[in-house]
């Protein structure tokens, strides 16, 4: 399937990150060991109607954006103002907030990549960007006004579809940069961010495209937050900075966060020939399904098969395993044990960046790939905040007769997970993300030699 000799380089990146001014601010705060999670005033205002109130959110003001509300329809965003004039008004009119983040992040990534307009607008340049959710704010408000308030459909204006459709981010980015290649969105719940980048990797690897802008987005929306809040899977009872605590015994759920991660991929030899700064090289990507019929529970066997597929016939020996590590009771335990089962107990470290900014859902895999590129650049493993105590007892599922994974308690693997930055030689990182529906994604990236 692969075109002979085609490798893929990461040559640009950009994004929108909670409580950060820009990409550099994000990087500095991460390596300074800071948490980007805050009390969310919008959630707190709902009182007892909502269970969790901590979040890695991004306000419009923090992105220098402002909503212009419709005069015809209650609380309906008609369009937006970009106070920094990054995105033209015509493109803002067809966007929701996440699409605007995507366009700004794409501009950053292409600028970093150094692509010419001719290259960007080529038939060989694609856009693959997805989200874990629909355009909740636009469609939710539109439906409320139509069905409940009995407004005419035309009062909603002509931008409900383009701002609510599944691939709105990819579509808006494509209309902005005017590429003539592929424009699509892949959806795989919380594996979406990495899934889109993995699909883009294959487009280049298989010889279909030479360049692809790709990633994941999850726009700040209570409409998204409350669905997870209802499932009682969100962290509760800790201060914001202590709420996301992967692998810690007292973890009780993930922190629902929002953001955007975009990377620019390019066929390796083309990037090298034009003297591009290569941030990392993608070694391989693999994705699969648990195949156990379970929508929510992680699968030890599914994750083991994921690793096997990632290895393929390549030598992959990561110095860091960037885990999904959501801070949910079941998820973290299964994941740590599957990593240990495949990788052994020595010679690598585990990074769980959600400990610093929470779970960005459809953006998670893309933003966490960016954090992995940071780790390659800085030769440091990011800290796993709040992983204070690992369970000294066996997990209940480890005591079942059919369990054939590691027989030691999580505390035995303490040395793999550090609460402090670790300075070490990092040449290769494996990134893991999983999603509802039993979907699993893995990507291996290496430092450019």
């Amino acid at each position: 399937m692969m075109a002979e000799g085609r490798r893929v380089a990461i040559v640009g990146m950009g994004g929108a990150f909670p409580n950060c001014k820009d990409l550099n601010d994000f990087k500095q705060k991460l390596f300074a060991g800071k948490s980007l999670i805050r009390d969310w005033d919008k959630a707190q205002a709902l009182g007892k109607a909502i269970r969790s109130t901590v979040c890695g959110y991004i306000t419009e003001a923090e992105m220098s954006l402002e909503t212009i509300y419709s005069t015809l329809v209650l609380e309906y965003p008609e369009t937006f103002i970009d106070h920094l004039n990054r995105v033209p008004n015509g493109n803002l009119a067809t966007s929701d907030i996440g699409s605007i983040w995507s366009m700004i992040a794409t501009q950053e990534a292409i600028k970093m990549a150094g692509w010419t307009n001719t290259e960007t607008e080529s038939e060989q340049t694609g856009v693959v960007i997805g989200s874990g959710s629909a355009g909740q704010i636009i469609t939710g408000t539109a439906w409320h006004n139509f069905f409940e308030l009995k407004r005419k459909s035309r009062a909603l204006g002509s931008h409900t579809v383009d701002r609510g459709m599944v691939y709105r981010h990819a579509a808006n980015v494509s209309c902005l940069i005017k590429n003539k290649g592929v424009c699509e969105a892949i959806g795989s719940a919380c594996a979406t961010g990495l899934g889109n980048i993995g699909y883009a990797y294959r487009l280049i690897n298989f010889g279909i495209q030479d360049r692809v802008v790709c990633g994941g987005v999850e726009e700040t929306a209570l409409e998204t937050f409350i669905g997870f809040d209802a499932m009682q899977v969100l962290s509760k009872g800790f201060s914001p900075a202590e709420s996301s605590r992967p692998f810690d015994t007292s973890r009780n759920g993930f922190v629902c966060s929002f953001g955007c991660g975009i990377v620019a991929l390019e066929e390796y030899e083309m990037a090298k020939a034009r003297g591009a700064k290569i941030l990392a090289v993608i070694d391989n990507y693999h994705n699969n399904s648990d195949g156990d019929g379970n929508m929510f529970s992680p699968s030890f066997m599914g994750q083991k098969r994921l690793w096997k597929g990632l290895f393929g016939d390549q030598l992959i020996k990561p110095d860091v395993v960037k885990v999904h590590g959501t801070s949910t009771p079941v998820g973290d335990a299964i994941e740590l044990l599957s990593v240990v089962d495949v990788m052994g107990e020595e010679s690598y470290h585990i990074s769980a960046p959600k400990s610093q900014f929470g779970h960005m859902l459809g953006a998670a895999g893309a933003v966490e790939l960016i954090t992995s590129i940071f780790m390659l650049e800085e030769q440091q493993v990011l800290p796993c905040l709040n992983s204070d105590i690992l369970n000294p007892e066996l997990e209940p599922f480890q005591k079942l007769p059919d369990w054939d994974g590691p027989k030691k308690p999580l505390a035995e693997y303490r040395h793999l997970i550090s609460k402090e930055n670790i300075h070490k030689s990092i040449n290769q990182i494996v990134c893991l993300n999983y999603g509802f529906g039993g979907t699993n994604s893995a990507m291996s990236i290496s430092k450019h030699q």
Partner: protein
Amino acid sequence: MERQEIIDGLVDILRTVRTIDQEKLENVTEETDFIADLKTPSTEMINIAAKAEQKFDVEFDDDDIDDLGSTVKDIVDLIISTKEKG
């Protein structure tokens, strides 16, 4: 309501439609074509019609909107005829 008063009101509406080049709104007349002259995306015509309903306190028939032309005169005529229908 005078026709020029309606045109001025329509220009006020067009100033809120951010897909339209605002510099082209300086010399709008009844002959101005939304699509040909102002480069208004055709999808925005329904927004303009809905905002005109609110501003001039009228409710257009769906068929009239379907048949609406793309000049300022077309919509001025529709506003006046709709008002006359009461």
